[in-house]
Structure formats: C-alpha cells, structure tokens
C-alpha cells in the first residue's frame, strides 16, 4: 500500500507490503499488537515498539524516544490548491484516465492513475464535483506540479 506524508523537507512516499499478519519495508517488519501499537523487528533481531494515533489528517508516532507528526497527503491532493485543479505530485506517466469532462464525481473517486518511480499514484477527487477539464491522456508524460484535471466543487 502506498501513502504520502508531508514533511518539512518535502513529501515522503511510503509503500508497505503485507504478508500474513505483518508488514514489510526494507529490512523492517511491523506487526500490529492487540493494544494498537506496532512491534517493529529490525534485521539484527532488535525490536522497537511504535505508539501511533491519527488525529485529523496527522499520524502521531512514537518510536524509541522520538515523536513524529506525519501529515498524510490524500493521493493526488496538491500542495498548492489552485482552485479545483489537480496536479501531478511527481514527474511520471499517465497510465489511465478514468473520467470524462462533464462527469459528476463524488469525493474519493479515482480520476486518473499515474506511474512514477515504478509506483502507481492515484489522483483522487477531494470533494464532490464536476470534472471541467482533462489535460492529459493515457501514455502522456507529465512534469511535477502540472495540472492534470480540473474539478468544480458541487
């Protein structure tokens, strides 16, 4: 599963894979515990415990004496909201366009799928609305930050 978090240094993309009850990222293995924490196993056999809680859009995480505030960015949400325009979060290629101009969509609908850094990114409607423009088609290369579609909030 792929997620994006805001950080002072810039957006951070994280993709975690699941196998059985555990999740994997690089050499780390995380297993949810009954009390809601995660047990994180390092490849040297040592263990860390993460407390985590989501308040609004922000994941608060405590690991090994450090506390992190990680604001989750909705897939496809742009950092600089330009009036309903949905921009490319990174340079990549359009894989699929799932909507047409004039179509009414509800919040959460996937509008377009990009491929970048060998990962898929879904551009998702942040609100109910009507698609007023589609600027690219499947196979097009896009630069980071360009508007991909426009949506008029209803």
């Amino acid at each position, binding site marked *: 599963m792929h997620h994006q978090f805001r950080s002072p240094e810039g957006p951070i993309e994280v993709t975690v894979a699941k196998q059985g009850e555990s999740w994997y990222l690089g050499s780390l293995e995380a297993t949810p515990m009954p009390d809601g924490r995660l047990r994180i196993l390092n490849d040297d056999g040592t263990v860390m415990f*993460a407390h985590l809680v989501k308040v609004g859009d922000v994941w608060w995480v405590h690991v090994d004496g450090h506390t992190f505030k990680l604001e989750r960015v909705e897939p496809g949400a742009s950092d600089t909201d330009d009036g309903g325009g949905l921009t490319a979060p990174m340079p990549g290629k359009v894989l699929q366009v799932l909507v047409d101009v004039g179509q009414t969509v509800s919040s959460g609908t996937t509008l377009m799928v990009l491929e970048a850094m060998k990962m898929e990114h879904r551009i998702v409607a942040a609100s109910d609305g009507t698609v007023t423009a589609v600027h690219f088609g499947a196979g097009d290369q896009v630069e980071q930050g360009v508007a991909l579609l426009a949506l008029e909030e209803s």
Partner: protein
Amino acid sequence: MVSKVLVANRGEIACRILRACNEAGLASVAIYAANDADSMFLELADQAVLLEGETIGETYLDQQQILAIAKATGADAIHPGFGFLSERADFARAVGEAGLQWVGPSPEAIEQMGDKMTARITMRAAGVPVIPGEEIEQEEEAEALAAIESASHRVGYPLLLKASSGGGGKGMRAVHSPEDLIESAKGARREAIAAFGDGRVYIERLLTGSKHVEIQVLADRHGRTVHLGERECSVQRRHQKVFEEAPCATMTPDLREAMGQAAVAAAEAVNYEGAGTVEFLLASTGEFFFLEMNTRIQVEHPVTELVTGVDLVREQLRIAAGEPMSCGPLMMRGHAIEVRLYAEDPENNFLPAIGPLAVFRPPEGPGVRLDTGVREGDSVTPNYDPMLAKLIVWAPSRAEALQRMRRALDEFVVLGTTTNIRFLRELCDEPEVVTGQTDTTTIDRLWPDGWHPSVPRSIEDAALMSAAVGESAGLHRTVSVVAGSSSGPVSPFATLHRRFP
C-alpha cells in the same frame, strides 16, 4: 486547628496538595472554573465548587468569591499553591480577617519579600549578601532614566534591569554596553508598567557564568527555622526553569552550610512561617548573592523532597495547624532531577502548543515520580500554563539519576500535542549537563539559533513505516464510549429493591 482545606489552585499542584490533605486526614475543597470541569484535580477533593466567571481574574483570582466558597463549604484553611494568589499579601490578609488559616507566611512577610527593593534592603540588614546594585525609586520617566544612567557607572557592565514588582522574566533586560542602556531601560519600564502597574526598576550587576542555586527553608511557630539544602535550577530558558536538581553538582558541605545559614537568616528577618525558598546566584568564585525569596511552595519542591525525605506539603499543613514541623536533622541522600514537560514546540521557538492528549503514557519503574494534573483523553487548551507534568527521578548518584531520567524520557509517550520531551532528553546528553557545569546561560549558549532534534534515519524510517502501516491497516486507535440512546420510555421513578428469597 485545621480540619478542612480549600485549595485555591488547579492542575498538578492542586492534585499534589489534595492528595496530601487526604493523607493528613483533612477534608478538602477544590474550586474550579467552568473550563476545568473535567480536570483531574476535582476528583481528588471531597468537594468541588464551580467558580462563576470567564477570565482567570473572575475565577482563580477572585478573592471575594473564593472566600465566600470557603465560608459556604466550612473550610477553615486556604492553601494557595503557587502562582495565582499565592504571593498576594492582600489575599493572605483577607483570609486571616475572615477567620481562616492561610497556609503560608504572614502578609507582612509576603510584602517584605514581594517588593524586590524592600527585600534587598531587608536582606542587607540581616547580613545576607546581595548582588551589587541599586534601587531606582524614581517613578517619573525622565528622572528614572537619569537615575539609572548614573547608577550604571557604579554598578558596572554587564548589568541587569528588573521590574521591582516583577517575576517570570517580565520587565527584565540584560544590558551589555552603555549605548544600549536607555533603550533597554525604557523597554523594561514599559513592560513593568504593563504587567504590574508599577514602572520602578532596579539595576544590578549581571553575574554571567553563575549558577542559580536556591535554598529550601521551613519555619514553624515553635521557634524552629531550618534549611533543607539546595536545589540547582541554572538550566533556564528566558528565566523559566527547565531542569532542576538537588544537590547542586558543585556544592561543598561548607558552602551549603553558609548558604543555608544565610537563607535561615533571611527567613528569620521577616518572621517567616511555613515553606519558602531563598534564591541565590552562585558565582564561579564561590561567592553567592541573594536574588529573591519565594514565599510559597515551589514548582521544583519534589527534588528536595526526594533527597531529604521531607514531605514539604505535609509540613506546610502541619505548620499551618500550629503544630511543630516533624522533620529531624537534615539528611540528604542520593540525587534527584526534575524536568518540566511543556506543551510547546521546541523547534519553533518554544511556542505553546495545544491539542488533545490522544496518548499520554508516563514512564514507570522504580525511582520515577510524576506530578501531573492531566491524563490521557484530556485536551491542552490555551487557557492556562502549558506545563503538562513534572517528571522527577531519584537515584543513589547523579550519574545514575541522569541515566534514569534518560530512560524515563525515552519511555514517555505523548501523542496529539507537541511537547518538549525530546528537547529534555537531548539536554540530558549535553556535556555540561553531564558534568554538572551548567549555568544560567547554558541553553542560550548551546542552542543560539534554536533547537532541532537529531533523529537517526533508521528511527524516522520506522516512524514513516508505522504511519503507512497504520493508514493501510486502519489502525485508528479509538477509545470510545458508546453512549447508546435508551430505547423505550424511561420510567419516571427510580428505585432500588433488594429481594431476599
């Protein structure tokens, strides 16, 4: 005689006092503003009474309302805690005139120590060393500035300007060279007038590289005034203490005795009663100078309790009841450190933070004490001081106490509100904290451009992974109370019926 104590305070110190009342077998009354209706301290009192009013002035500072509640609930003593009305001589006087016992010194002692100039004069007369400096009695702007200019030549640079009726760093200015003097003096007066309605300042030599060392005293009505050794509170940020310990790492038995005797002399000079603290600057030369006397229990009192074994709040209650204090000869043992946990953002100039305490898990284990007034599920609001808790550790030696503090801070989990926990944790690794060579400029020197955490990349990765797993797996921790609506009509009468077959 004291049998029922009204605690005119809130938060952690109210909890501390209410627990002591309970253990002393005294009934207790809490008072609270409407925005404290769910606060923990209410639960520790036998009775809790709502204060009418919106602002702090209309609630926790409303002397008449508090006295009326004391009357109505039959309280016969008032414990003011610290802050709020604790150093208001007029309130102490009103409490006495209402026939109630004030848990603290006489109004006269509060007055003599509350005005910094009077305090300095009193201390000089009692033979207690004061910092070279002069009182500026002039109230009119131009006259005051002229007097300050003239005094600056005798005091010397660097110097410090302080509001005469000040506290908490307000109206305080450090002046390092003559050309900054007049501008700083105007600023100090402006702040002093705004904060205290009194523009008088005094000017004193700024002793750089000094330690802030304070002596705890106790005095009862049976002629006994004792000191309980020192606390070092040099690690301050803008005159706000952050890291406090006992004993002072560089203290010697002779110096302790000399400072202790000076503190006892200070207390006796104003016929002190109860618990009080005499603050000194301890220069690197070993000379010490009177700063001020705090005529109340202090935030950092637990470190003294842990090294001396004296329960200061119980002794306050005993002394107020007219009993002799119960503690024997001074017996210091081991080392105690306190840090103050604030809801603040150390990466952003320590701006106060607010938010829910979605997770609040204090550390556990031997030698760890937590004084707090909040628990998981509470919210930090902008209404009051952002101090969340005092974390205090004791261990047989200073090195072990620091290690224990590191472990405790690493175990402390607060999520939902930004805190200074990591700042405090890294402070414990700074070489001058490790060696005990701290002075009042330590924090400014260590982080002149602000503080930023050093986070190992591997830990950050684990945190990012945790958030991603949390999002993916839907690990949205919910601590919810399902308050279902009751179905059907509710019976208008309520009964409890035991049936014996």
